Each structure stands twice: as structure tokens, then as C-alpha cells.
């Protein structure tokens, strides 16, 4: 039985100047790289396959298998692209990782690139995180100077260039093929598949695209072994992950634990709900994963169990909302987000989100009628599985799941003639306006139950 929390990626975040090469190497950093460079490349792939590591960006595709799809007989260059476009609402794990310990990612990039025989790698990081980009730039520069990057890395004969590339504000670029178009200097709209990126990705060459946390997990797998990694987690969901707790808990934050921890445990670790409040609804992995409620508190947070509960593990972005929160307002705001971020390529997502917002907005303001709920569900049915990529699917998740669990609350808006909630009651500074709040403190603010 492993411990409740298992800091690996987060272990050095409190180290002095954790972002520097010196600090990282002092903690044993780049040891895995040296080990990997002595391994055969296919053995590195095998280790990652055997570890059971699955993509940490939301979809959960086995990472080693993805690497195995790269056709090594293809004469084109191979590329590794790190998806650091963390933008899924509620998701906030990769950004602190890259800010605190960019070298963990850089080391992972080098090992992973070596494994798939890429000589050029990219970190595509969203543009709206200036300081993270500074830290990444500095880390890459340090890594070059230390000989971890560049030509003939540590005498291995292996060459790698790593480019930190800042995006410019587009949620859709988290979709891997849209990211590739964006990285090629185009509008970030998803590509037709096939061909899949493994065959024809960046510059129509074989390309692996992995999430930050996936790549950052690779050094530990190489260092400690696949079995060590697989000893954590559940049967089909191996290893440790970062769970991000936010919202109406006393102490929001990052919790690195083996896959399978429950929300109940996590809320406990977060000091419980805000004083005097109770859990109303939550997202297991960002706004694109259907919301869950208090009845799901004891579901193991792994790929299988959350899926079985009708949602998805996603990015383990646990946004916690208590009973002061109007679910219609929350869902409307998410829907506005999808409308804003719809790339415009396909009809159902582009036009559907335009319409969904109008329908939801009317309901939030007490206009419309109960049959509009059925209209909403029908609109969602015409978007889900009909859009070009998963953005459209994600847009329907909060709507269909919230109507499933909170239909009465929608109806209450109609009977009440508007939103029955007081938005002030759900704020961090409710009743304590003027105080200096801060995370990591135990100053739970007490609000009035709606």
C-alpha cells in the first residue's frame, strides 16, 4: 500500500531556487538522462510501455504505445512536441510544474526525444504565462550550456535541439493537431486524421505530442524503473499524478498522489469544504468532463472508475463548488468559454455554441420555458459526436450533466424569474471584504447558505 501522497514531480518545488540547473542536479536531476543515454532507444520505449504511463493531458492514451507508432523507417526527421498549452478550465498542474522545476520537463524531453530518435523537440507553451516562459527559456539555455542539449550529448553521439515556443491565446491549440498547425505558423485549427501525427505530424513528419506531465514523468520511470511506477495506482491506471484542487475548499492546491485517490480524501487533505458549506458539484478533470456531485465522492479518481460514473478523469482538475454556486451560471460561463474558443472550422461547434449560449442565457435570466431544457439537450445531441474535434463534445458535457443532476435548479430560474442565487455568497471574499486572503492559509471564509 502506497502512501496517500507521493510527491515525485512536485518533490523539489519547495527547494531553494528549484528552477535552476544547480538545484535540480543537486536533487539528482539529469541522472535519468545519463542512464537513458546508455540504454538502447527501444529499451527506453519499452520501459515507458511497461510502466503503464498514460497520457496526462486528458485522453489517457498509453504513452509508450504512442511512441511505438513512430515509423522508424520513415526517412523524414522525427519530432517531439510537448503540449504545454494548459488551458482547460480548472487545469493548473503543468504551469506550476514548469515554473518550479522546468528541468524536470527538459530532462523528460531529452529522454523521450532520444527514445523516438527525434533531433528536434518543441515545448509549445501557452503565451499567457510570462514567468513560466522565462523559466523554460532559462532552463533550456542552462541545459545547452551543461551539455544536456545540443550536439553529441554527453558523448552519446545523440543530438537534440529544443525550442521553447510561446502560443498566443487559443484553447483549441491544446488539441494536438491544432497545436501542430499553430506550431507551423497557421491558424490553430484541428487537422483531419488520418494521417495521424505519428505518421505525418509536424512538417508532415512523424511526430509525438505529449502532455507536460507525461513527459515530466519519464525521468522517474527511467530512474526507478517501470515496476516502481506501476506499483502505484490502480490496475489499469498506473503511477502517480497531480490532482489540482480548486474552488470552495479551505485549502486549494496541488496534490500528487497515486491514481485512484477519491475526492473525499482530497477534500480532507484540502482542509474540508469552506466552513459551513457543503459540496454541490465538481468537475473531475476540467470543464469538458461532465460534472459530478456529492454522490460521487468515493469514486476512485482513475481513468476507469470516473468513466464508469459517466464522466472522464481528464486533467484531474477538481473544481469544487459549494451550495452557494448557481449551476446554471457556472454552466453558462463555461459555454461562453467554448463559444469564445471554438475555432470556427466545423458547423456544430461553431454555430452550436453560439446558440447554446443564447438558450442558456435566457434560462439564467428566467426567460424561456421548461421545454428549452429539451431543446438544449437536443442541441447537445446534435453537437456531441458530430463536431470535428473534441472541443464541441466538451462543450456539451457541462450542459447535459448539469441538466441530469440539477434539472430542478434550471426550472427554479424560470419560476423565480431569474437567478435565485446571490453571487456574492460564493466569492472567496464573501463577508470578509477587505481582508487579505491567501491560499495555503486555513482562513476558511464563512458564507451564508443560499
Amino acid at each position, binding site marked *: 500500500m502506497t502512501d496517500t501522497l507521493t510527491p515525485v514531480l512536485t518533490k523539489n518545488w519547495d527547494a531553494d531556487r528549484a528552477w535552476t540547473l544547480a538545484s535540480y542536479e543537486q536533487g539528482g536531476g539529469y541522472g535519468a538522462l545519463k542512464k537513458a543515454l546508455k540504454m538502447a532507444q527501444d529499451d527506453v520505449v519499452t520501459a515507458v510501455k511497461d510502466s503503464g504511463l498514460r497520457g496526462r493531458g486528458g485522453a489517457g492514451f498509453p504513452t509508450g504505445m504512442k511512441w511505438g507508432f513512430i515509423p522508424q523507417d520513415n526517412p523524414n526527421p522525427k519530432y517531439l512536441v510537448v503540449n504545454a498549452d494548459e488551458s482547460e*478550465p480548472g487545469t493548473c498542474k503543468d504551469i506550476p510544474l514548469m515554473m518550479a522545476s522546468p528541468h524536470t520537463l527538459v530532462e523528460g524531453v531529452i529522454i523521450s526525444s532520444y527514445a523516438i530518435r527525434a533531433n528536434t523537440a518543441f515545448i509549445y507553451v501557452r503565451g*499567457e504565462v510570462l514567468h513560466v516562459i522565462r523559466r523554460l*527559456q532559462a532552463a533550456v539555455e542552462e541545459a545547452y550550456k551543461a551539455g544536456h542539449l545540443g550536439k553529441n550529448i554527453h558523448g552519446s553521439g545523440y543530438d537534440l535541439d529544443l525550442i521553447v515556443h510561446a502560443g498566443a491565446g487559443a484553447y483549441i491549440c491544446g488539441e494536438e493537431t491544432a497545436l501542430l498547425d499553430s506550431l507551423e505558423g497557421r491558424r490553430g485549427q484541428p487537422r483531419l486524421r488520418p494521417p495521424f501525427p505519428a505518421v505525418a505530424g509536424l512538417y508532415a513528419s512523424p511526430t509525438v505530442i505529449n502532455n507536460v506531465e507525461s513527459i515530466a514523468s519519464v525521468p522517474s520511470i527511467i530512474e526507478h524503473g517501470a515496476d516502481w511506477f506501476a506499483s*502505484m495506482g490502480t490496475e489499469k491506471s498506473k503511477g502517480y499524478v497531480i490532482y489540482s484542487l480548486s474552488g470552495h475548499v479551505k485549502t486549494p492546491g496541488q496534490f500528487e498522489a497515486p491514481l485512484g485517490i477519491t475526492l473525499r480524501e482530497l477534500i480532507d487533505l484540502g482542509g474540508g469544504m469552506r466552513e459551513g458549506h457543503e459540496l454541490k458539484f465538481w468537475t473531475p478533470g476540467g470543464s469538458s468532463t461532465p460534472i459530478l456531485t456529492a454522490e460521487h465522492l468515493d469514486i476512485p479518481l482513475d481513468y476507469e472508475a470516473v468513466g464508469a460514473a459517466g464522466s472522464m478523469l481528464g486533467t484531474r482538475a477538481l473544481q469544487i463548488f459549494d451550495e452557494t454556486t448557481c449551476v446554471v451560471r457556472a454552466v453558462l460561463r463555461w459555454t461562453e468559454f467554448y463559444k469564445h474558443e471554438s475555432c470556427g472550422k466545423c458547423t456544430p461547434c461553431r454555430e452550436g455554441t453560439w446558440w447554446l449560449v443564447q438558450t442558456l442565457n435566457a434560462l439564467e435570466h428566467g426567460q424561456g420555458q421548461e421545454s428549452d431544457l429539451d431543446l438544449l439537450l437536443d442541441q447537445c445531441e446534435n453537437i456531441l459526436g458530430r463536431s470535428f474535434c473534441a472541443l464541441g463534445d466538451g462543450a456539451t458535457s457541462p450542459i447535459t450533466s448539469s441538466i441530469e443532476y440539477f434539472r430542478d435548479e434550471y426550472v427554479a430560474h424560470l419560476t423565480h424569474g431569474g437567478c435565485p442565487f446571490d453571487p456574492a455568497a460564493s466569492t472567496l471574499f464573501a463577508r470578509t471584504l477587505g481582508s*487579505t486572503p491567501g491560499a495555503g492559509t486555513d482562513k476558511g471564509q464563512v458564507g451564508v447558505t443560499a
Partner: protein
Amino acid sequence: MSENTGIDEKTYGELREIADRYPHARSGLLPMLHLVQSAEGSVTPEGIEACAEILGISAAEVSGVATFYTMYKRRTVGDYHVGVCTNTLCAVMGGDQIFAELKDHLGVGNDETTEDGKITLEHVECNAACDFAPVVMVNWEFMDNQTPESAKQLVDDLRSGTEVSSTRGARLCTWREAERVLAGFPDGRADEGPAAGPASLVGLELARENGWKAPEK
């Protein structure tokens, strides 16, 4: 005949330098547009034409890219871009109220700039700092756990020239200076600020308190 754009020679050279970083020059377009914003204060026609010329693509293609991404601005941005997260979680936790009070306090609407040219206010989407909600971004630096009061104080300080540091980052630079970093030209401030904010360390501290750790090999 020669490149008769408003982009000066130094910037033009740096735009080329960005394109040269990539296996295929067009990959440089996003950072190049960041540099254009750094030099021009927005994506200007001169900047679009310079990018098109360097990359050998049409200005319509550059313009199509520039208008796709929300960080690229068609109107000149103030010294400080203040972005209030109003995605669901931050909104619920107080972002809506912060945004409303800032609009009132600054006398500007969304995506508008104060008359003194100091502050451009915009509501932004989730910026991956939900455990620090509600969040305000200044020139894409984190200002965590804001209240309406702290946010108003923040913009007042920015307008009066008081030095402000990010709650988890460096001393705030101007928006144009920030855009230059995004273009890939570091400003030497990477070592400022902490490694992590308090929320990022909650789990780690708990683990340390309880002696929890990953299994030994």
C-alpha cells in the same frame, strides 16, 4: 522598393532571426507577431507586411493567423494589460465582481485602455491558476488571490508608477517588454520570484508533515 515598413531595421533583423530558429521558417510566425507587438504596441499593417515578406506568404495569411489568437491586439495596448479571469471558477470565486469594480474604477470597458494609456482592461479565460482563484493577470504575470480592493490597489499602483511584483513572479515589466520575452528574447528576470506559490505546495507540505512519499525503488 526596399522594405519600406514602419518596422525598423533592428526589429526586422530580429524577425528574421526568429524565423531562422525553426526547421521551417513559417513556424516563427507566432513569436514574430509577439515581437511585432513588442515593437509596435499592436499587430500593425507594417508588422503584418514584414512577417509576410520574411516568410514568403501572403499578408492575408498572416492576418488570418493574427486575428485567430486572442493575445494579438488590433488596437494599441496600454503599458499594462490587466486580465481578469472570468472563467467559471474564478468568476464564482469573485472574478466577476473584480472585473466589474475595475471597469468602474478605471472608467473603461472590456478591451479598452485608460486615457493615460497605462491600463488595458480585459476579461480573460482560465489561466491555469485555479488554486489561486480569483486570479488577475498583469502582462501575463500572476496576481493571485485577488479581491476587488487588492485589484483596485494594483491598478492604482501601476498607474502611479509604483513598482509592483507578481505574487509568483518577477517585478512587473511593461506589456511590450513582456511580448518581447514571448518572442523568445529573454529579459533576465527568470530568477526573480519564488519557485512556487503557496497553493502549489499544499500537497507537498502535507506529505512532508505526514512522512508520505513515493515508494522506494
